[in-house]
């Protein structure tokens, strides 16, 4: 039917290597999410703070993250900042790029979620003697994370997909990087990338299903 002979076994023989790559991909994605969430909470706090310069820093971060390509952010983290003599390994550059992106998008989600929480909640906490920070930590934050849970799941999926951009900064241990290396060896472009696509698809499905499971466990109210 096609003028091309598929050689799936050739490509499938490399599956173990690709799965190793998938593990690295997950490692980057999970790390970037964990750090990203922490930073996003921090950015949210900065944006809530009365201080103008702090607000400006947070807003700038969020807007740059949301309004420039992720590829640009990652490329910048490697080749851009190197102009200041700061060198990051490909892994670190990729992690920084994705984390920067995650934090920006998540901070925006958190802001939307905060709007949905009435400020009487903080008042109620404060009048029980809690400090501003305690009220945020114990009352606002958990509710915010719940409202933002679905967007967070989507961001996690994007984080996984974004790891594929690591090749532009010399990353070759993640799933995409491994696949590209194998392709250079064998020229079985279609088969190899098709397998990579399937692995990515499965990963994202596991994430969305897992998130649903976690949500049903975590949010019983």
């Amino acid at each position: 039917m096609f003028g091309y002979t598929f050689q799936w076994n050739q490509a499938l023989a490399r599956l173990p290597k690709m799965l190793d790559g998938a593990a690295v991909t997950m490692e980057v994605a999970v790390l970037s999410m964990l750090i990203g969430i922490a930073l996003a909470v921090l950015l949210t706090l900065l944006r809530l703070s009365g201080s103008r310069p702090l607000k400006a820093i947070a807003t700038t971060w969020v807007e740059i993250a949301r309004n420039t390509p992720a590829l640009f952010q990652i490329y910048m983290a490697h080749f851009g900042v190197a102009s200041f003599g700061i060198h990051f390994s490909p892994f670190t550059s990729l992690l920084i790029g994705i984390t920067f992106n995650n934090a920006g998008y998540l901070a925006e989600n958190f802001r939307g979620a905060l709007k949905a929480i009435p400020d009487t909640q903080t008042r109620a906490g404060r009048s029980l003697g809690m400090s501003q920070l305690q009220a945020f930590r114990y009352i606002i934050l958990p509710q915010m994370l719940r409202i933002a849970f679905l967007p967070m799941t989507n961001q996690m999926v994007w984080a996984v997909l974004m790891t594929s951009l690591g090749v532009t900064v010399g990353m070759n241990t993640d799933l995409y990087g491994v696949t590209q290396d194998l392709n250079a060896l064998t020229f079985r472009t279609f088969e190899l990338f098709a397998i990579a696509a399937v692995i990515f698809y499965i990963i994202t499905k596991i994430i969305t299903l897992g998130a649903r499971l976690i949500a049903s466990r975590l949010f019983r109210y």
Partner: protein
Amino acid sequence: DKLDDIIASGTLRCAVVLDFPPMGMRDANNEPIGFDVDYCNDLAKALGVKAEIVETPFPERIPALMSGRVDVGVASTSDTLERAKTVGFSVPYFAFEMAVTANEKSGIKSFDDMKGHTVGATAGTFEAIALEKQVQEWGTGEFRPYQTQADVFLALSQGQIDATVSTSTVAMANVKTGNFPGISVVGKAPFDTDYVALFTNRDEYGLINYLNLFVNQQVRTGRYAELYEKWVGGDLPSLTVPNAYR
């Protein structure tokens, strides 16, 4: 067969990589020039047809051939056995020596000095594959493949990597541009010579046969030496392997 088709159509379409000086590049007027370009023109002349240069980046070479966008690849393609499962190679028409280029700050003076350093090369090339293997053998240091030759030299001049292995021709050409301050070619890499071959579809025996004879004729008539002198210069690498048929 394809050979007939080419002669009948009156044009030979060659896949050439144009960001790989001096094998393929563009002059000030954006016209393709380089060793591979001349080689394609010679081939067309031998066939009695017109040459058409199709710019094809490294990863695009095989898809371009498969989709029939080109007839022959004259694209500095290493003739590995893996790849030969997919395309048909002629006998080698060129051979690269591998050279080490280092950032002067790194203090690397030879191939062996690279041990323990962060090194890089263009993803998917012969030298990248060999260098990555070497780094693994050394067991220390780090290997980074970048997407383009340009990124490799950018990373090298920024000091993100300390050294790279590339074909000596490319290394010379890049250092000569002056675009990358602080780097210099420091020696040869003891890798196998990288023989590169013309390629076409695997089952086009007639054409492959013709290509083999053409390469042979280029050497016999001295045209190979002439082109080498024009684009590269220096000692003419031998295209034959002692005690081997091909």
